[in-house]
């Protein structure tokens, strides 16, 4: 699936930038360390927005398009931040046949964002995930570490309202 690019304004801190610069300085002698730098950057910022990728491109002397190409090739890199509450809806086989797609659609509709995106206030992000090993509870979703099972779309409002406050 093509990754969603976040439209949320970048708000990195000078501390984060200093940490990234340090990683780049340790690695810039060897372009093959690009993946390592990108992984560290994601740990620092939580995702890899345009501003961060430009810092990496300039620092490593690698064209921005190459950095972006890597970031869109590997599933581990995110172009959109995680929200304060990260929602994962399981689309594994068991959950899928039990209707998790409808649950996901309902959440997307309620929050006005699509899987892979974060709400503008930074509160919620949604992702579709693979089997989380709770097939007996299908369909399943998680909000951070809270697990909700045997869902149907009508329960979505109630669950999300708990976190809206």
């Amino acid at each position, binding site marked *: *699936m*093509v*990754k969603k690019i976040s439209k949320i304004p970048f708000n990195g801190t000078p501390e984060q930038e200093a940490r990234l610069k340090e990683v780049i300085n340790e690695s810039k002698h060897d372009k093959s360390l690009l993946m390592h730098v990108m992984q560290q950057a994601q740990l620092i910022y939580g995702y890899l927005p345009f501003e961060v*990728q430009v810092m990496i491109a300039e620092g490593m002397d690698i*064209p*921005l*398009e190459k950095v*972006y*190409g890597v970031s*869109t090739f590997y599933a581990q890199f995110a172009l959109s931040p995680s929200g304060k509450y990260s929602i994962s809806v399981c689309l594994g086989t068991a959950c899928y046949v039990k209707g998790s797609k409808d649950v996901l659609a309902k959440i997307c509709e309620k929050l006005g964002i699509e899987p892979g995106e974060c709400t503008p206030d930074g509160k919620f992000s949604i992702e579709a995930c693979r089997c989380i090993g709770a097939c007996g509870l299908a369909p399943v979703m998680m909000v951070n570490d809270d697990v909700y099972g045997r869902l149907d779309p009508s329960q979505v409002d109630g669950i999300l309202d708990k976190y809206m406050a």
Partner: protein
Amino acid sequence: MEMVNIKINGMPLSVPNGISILEAARYAGIEIPTLCFLKKINQIGACRICMVEVKGARSLVTACVYPVNEGMEIFTNTEKVRRSRKLTLELILSTHDKKCLSCVRSGNCELQKLCKEFGVDDEDYFKGENVRYDFDDSAAHMIRDNNKCILCRRCVAACDNQNISVIGANARGFDTHIGSAFEKDLADVSCISCGQCIVNCPTGALREKDETDKVLEAINDPEKFVVVHTAPSIRVTLGECFGMHLGTNVQGKMVAALRRLGFDKVFDTDFGADLTIMEESNELLERIQNGGVLPMITSCSPGWIKYCEHYYPDQLDHLSTCKSPQQMQGAMIKTWYAEKMGIDPKNIFVVGIMPCTAKKFENKRDDQNASGYPDVDVSLTTRELARMIESAGIYFNHLPDEEYDNPMGDSTGAAVIFGTTGGVMEAALRTAVVKITGQENDSPLEFTEVRGLQGVKEATYSVAGMDVKVCIASGMKNAKIVMDKVRAGTADYQFIEIMGCPGGCVNGGGQPIQHAVVHNFVDLTAIRASALYETDKAMPKRKSHENEAVKRVYEEFLGKPGSHKAHEVLHTSYVPRPKYK
């Protein structure tokens, strides 16, 4: 060179050790089809069309990257090989937008050619879900249609070879597509409009923005006085579009064709080139005498100019303020010539025939309108001109040879060689030496040190006791080498020539498209360049300052090189551009 004995289709053969099967097959007179392979710049073995059988190998191997070794037995045309190639083509077609009827590359498409050769008659064999891509027509010079892209990555290699790298493969698997970082439009990244991606594309996924309609509209408008001028290199490349041998000079037929297309006047951009030399050599001497910014760098190539603006915005002072020959020509047509002929420049429509896609960007720049109207209204590539000639039903190969119109059809050998790397430098030297020494007859005509296709060339000439050190670079990879020195202050040259495309305009992004097999096995750029040097040699006048029309414009209109008037009409300015936005 160590040789190895191999057999290709049973034919024994001795070839250099370590060359690829693809190259070895050439020795046997066999062309193995390729789609992704570009010698030296794209050797990725990705498209799988060049598969051949090797005796003892577990599976088919990619001929483009598989080296030969002693005793190897290769089969290029077995049933297994043919089946594999056909399957590959069917798979490529499953995601290809097969609009062949009107595709700009129809008849010159490498994919279409292979499908015909391998009898792929069921193009819907693997029909299924497809991703539809929007056109990217944001840039001034080109259109990207990813629906026709076969992901060979030749455009990416060409862009990387230019050191620009604003395009690449994004996402993965079925979603893989060629694009720019963060899916930005081409107009919003630091693309220099050189068009090297277009001339290396095997299909119609990349093409110049066709502006022939605008030209036809102007020709059909009785109010408009439509003037065309042709860049130096077009005369030795246009013939390729009509099946002529590489390096054929078709100047006379080209002029005849343009006249038959309905242009009111057919001029030679050579006039603009000669004028450029007058202004540029004067600017150089002034900078040397008055302690101006040195080294001075040529400004003929709009791809190079855009590169400098994006990547070396702090070094713009080094650029000559001279407009390019295309723009000088247009400016003179709409000022001096308009005045002479009593035509309102508003009603003059100037068309440049250029080897270049960046010229489409250049003619829309600010500060390129000496008469108050754009110096050049439309810039067409060699390919667009060929299409106009074809669609007008003009039998190009049978046309008589005709002469350019006066007065701006006058030309010199110096102007002709503008079309190849080192040509502007040589032309400038021919005139500068005469200016400095004052000796017309004894001064040298040929400066062989600045010729040739090496990426960076240097030479030092002693002129009247003064050492003039010059440097020539073509292709942005080489420009970077030189510009890093300029930025560091270690470039001890007086004058640098930089051309956007590797090898100069003869290898420009607007030139006729040759299939990869030509790029891989023939030195296309060298053949085209040598045709220009041959033309130069045969010219009665070979120095820019001998151009009669140039002499006249200084007498009647401009005064002298570098005059106030000349600055108004023939010089321009540059702007720093961001690398990212």
